[in-house]
């Protein structure tokens, strides 16, 4: 999709992983999933081109990139004041008309009137870990109207100029010219339950099991570690549910009145009730397998189940921890005489 370069907005259905430079990692992944037929809440990406148009407008008054590029990595005081100035300017600078119009139209197409959306930054850096180091992982839930959406969009853009982000780039001497940010805007899932799914065991690296963790309400409580989630281990191939750790889920996060989220304490009974039934677990496993097959490698996935029971994926990224550790050494090399293998059991020598 080379023509994305020229468009401030791109729909999930039109993009894929290859479009990462324009739509960022998160946007590319959601697009890829959408194209693969995996259920994802519909949405669009404000592309890096949209960001560039905005930046151009800012640079028109005073330099931005040059200002950052000149900073010394250990001069934290100056970084702090530049950061403050730039974030203020990101909040104040009027949006270029083309950008404003494209985003407004897309938002209007997403739903009828004021659609509740999630606004999420979608960094273009190769490695998700870099993005979290650099503080580029903003997610705003239950954003309720156009103006608020624009405010959150600016906040995501502004995170490029946070103190951590600038310091990180300066420390690693990253060229400022490539720094851009895409932003995902997608329909909000009114999650009954949500959580994460690993298509490779996070504890053992086993590729034959799928681990699912989940809690009541929004997935933010699981991701942030505020609630100990229920945990299941399911045979990827067999579908056997071998482990069921049902935890005491003391609270859940839900929509706050007027937007945003709030935490509510749960009653005794719901706390210890599993947040997924077996049918849902197996449906998730099926989706996990499909996603893994699509990418050809194990995935870490964020999922939610709506109040009406629909399963939706919010994120999928390749598993990295075990992939790095994968030894080239085989479990056990073949033997010229296959019978020699039985000495593992009988021989007294491993």
């Amino acid at each position, binding site marked *: 999709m080379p023509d994305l370069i020229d468009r401030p907005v791109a729909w999930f259905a039109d993009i894929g992983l290859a479009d990462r430079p324009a739509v960022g990692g998160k946007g590319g992944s959601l697009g890829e999933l959408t194209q693969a037929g995996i259920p994802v809440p519909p949405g669009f990406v404000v592309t890096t081109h949209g960001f560039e148009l905005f930046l151009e407008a800012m640079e028109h008054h005073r330099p931005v990139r040059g200002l950052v590029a000149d900073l010394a990595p250990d001069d934290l005081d100056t970084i702090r004041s530049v950061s403050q100035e730039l974030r203020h300017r990101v909040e104040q600078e009027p949006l270029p008309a083309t950008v404003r119009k494209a985003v407004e139209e897309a938002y209007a197409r997403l739903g009828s009137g004021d659609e509740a959306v999630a606004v999420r930054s979608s960094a273009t850096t190769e490695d998700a870990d870099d993005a979290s180091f650099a503080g580029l992982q903003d997610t705003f839930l239950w954003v309720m109207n156009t103006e608020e959406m624009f405010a959150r969009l600016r906040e995501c853009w502004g995170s490029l100029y946070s103190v951590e982000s600038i310091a990180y780039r300066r420390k690693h001497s990253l060229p400022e010219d490539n720094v851009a940010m895409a932003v995902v805007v997608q329909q909000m899932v009114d999650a009954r339950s949500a959580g994460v799914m690993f298509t490779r065991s996070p504890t053992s690296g086993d590729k*034959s*099991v799928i681990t699912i963790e989940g809690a009541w309400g929004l997935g933010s409580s699981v991701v942030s570690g505020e609630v100990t989630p229920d945990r299941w281990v399911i045979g990827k191939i*067999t579908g056997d549910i*071998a482990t069921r750790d049902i935890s005491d889920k003391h609270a859940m996060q839900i929509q706050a009145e007027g937007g945003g989220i709030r935490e509510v304490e749960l009653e005794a009974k719901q706390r210890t009730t599993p947040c997924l039934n077996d049918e849902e677990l197996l449906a998730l496993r099926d989706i996990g397998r499909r996603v893994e097959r699509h990418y050809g490698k194990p995935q870490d996935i964020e999922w939610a189940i709506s109040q009406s029971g629909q399963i939706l994926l919010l994120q999928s990224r390749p598993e990295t921890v075990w992939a790095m550790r994968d030894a080239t050494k085989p479990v056990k090399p073949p033997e010229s005489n296959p019978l020699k293998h039985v000495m593992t059991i009988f021989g007294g020598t491993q």
Partner: protein
Amino acid sequence: MAGDAKSFPLPSSVRKVPGTERAQEALPYYTQFTPEDDDRFWFYNSMHFPEPMHHFDLVTAEAAYCALGAFNTRVHVLPTTKGIDHRVINGRVYIGGVPVTDPNEIAMRQEKFQARAFYYYENWEELYAQWKDKMKALIADAQALPRPVLPEWEPIKTTHTGKGVASNHALLDIYRKQLEGYFRMWHHHFEFLLLGYGAYLTFFDFCKRAFPEISDQAISRMVAGMEAEIFKPDEEVKRLARRAVELGVDQHFHDDMVIEDVLGTLDQLGENGREWLSELEVSRNPWFNVNVGDGFYHYHRSWNDDLSMPFAALPGYIEKVRAGETIERPMDRLVEERDQLVADYRELLDNDEDKATYDQLIHLAHRVFPYVEGHKFYCEHWYTNLFFNKIREFGALLAEHGFFEQEEDVFHLTHYELESAIIDLMLAWSSGSEPLGPKRWPAIVQDRKQAIDLWARNTVPPALGMVPDVIDDPAIVMLWGITRDNLDSWLDTGEQNQKELKGFAACSGIVEGTARVVRSVKEIGRLEQGDILVCQVTNPTWAPIFQKISAAVSDIGGSMSHMAIVAREYDLPAVVGTGSATSRIQDGQRIRVDGGRGLVTILDEEELLENA
């Protein structure tokens, strides 16, 4: 106890249950604990001998261990282990392995092992075909043994043929041949068993390393054989159900039928009835020679001895045939599913080398597994039934001559004592005077009956003696699933949750329902649709009632036990080897079976009310 956590009670500290001293004393000297045994580690073989042993039934332990050890120690020469020693106290069989630890000895044995065991692996199919012929010949020999009788006068034929041997000699001859056959059968049993398990475990071990969280069940499913004899009895019941419908005699089979009456009715019914009866005979010989236990107790009778098990299943199967359902095992689909499973796991392997190893291992496992699954039908079922029934015939003869009241009482004698009673009877018949046995045995039988009752009420430690640092004896790991981790959990019983029982995860799935504690086949009529079967041993012969129950729990059995194999095929959630389900779960209680985790939970009253 905290400072002494790594030791079980010493054998010398185990008190004989009061009132059973004489019964204990009567056991062979080589099964009695000695002071030196305190230095070794022993564990209670509850997997094979979950109930107190009758004196005669202990012949199974000695015949089996004579053969197991012979093959491990001296025929195949397993490098790191020899045989199994056994001791009996309070009616329970304790066993101890004999590991080889000297590196030089291991190296020497490795060489011999490869020369011998590899020959078996290389020629497995031919040797196994030969094995079946041997077993069938052995079975035919046992079937040919006449019923022991003592006529008042020697038949005139003895005179006319110049036979020169009188009838009383036949008693000893039959008895010794039968006993010899039983010992021989156990040799055949162990000819392939350890090698078969070993090849399977090699694949198992590889899977556990390549897929650390893979379930035992998934591995079992990949290896499971398709033509195994263990499925045959149930398939025969299905065949009879279909034939009943085809012949139009199906209306005679219902839940409350009296089997004798049904057989009588069919015989009177004309051609179709008799046709069905002849089909029944085809099924009975040999496939109903399966017993309802694991073959180690004389009272685990066979389908042929008691038709209630197969007949209990007939109405259900007939119902399904009438509804047009396919009840026969879908072989093609099962094979396809197994092959798919094998292929799917293979695809997850990281590199070509592992894939090559995987192919080598699964190939070997598939070759050896028919024996692992199939031998039990010939050994523990068919032959063992013949054996115990032959002993029963001696029981009837001795009871007839006043040695004890009933034929079943014979099983309270050791096999030595039984031989002495037989010789006593031979002498009396010979001399024309009265045997001495009737004055001696009734009191002893009484004493032993009481001992069995007392032993049954007595709980025994799961193990005795010092815990070894490692359990790497492949025989013990293979046959009993005993590992260092098991032992630690046995030592940990203090904190046991009274409402929870742990066993082997045999087949996954969670079911809540009413527990039906079934102690013998006589009680299977009590099972209602959806009940959870709780029993001591379930084996393939219980398969016909799997259509009726929602889950199964047993006291004994490992994840590779036959019960587990069949449960998986029926997709019936099952937990086996809980040790104490039949004693801790009460009939009618609500329980939850988690077959994936091997957990059984007794749901108490409060929880029931809360859920209501």
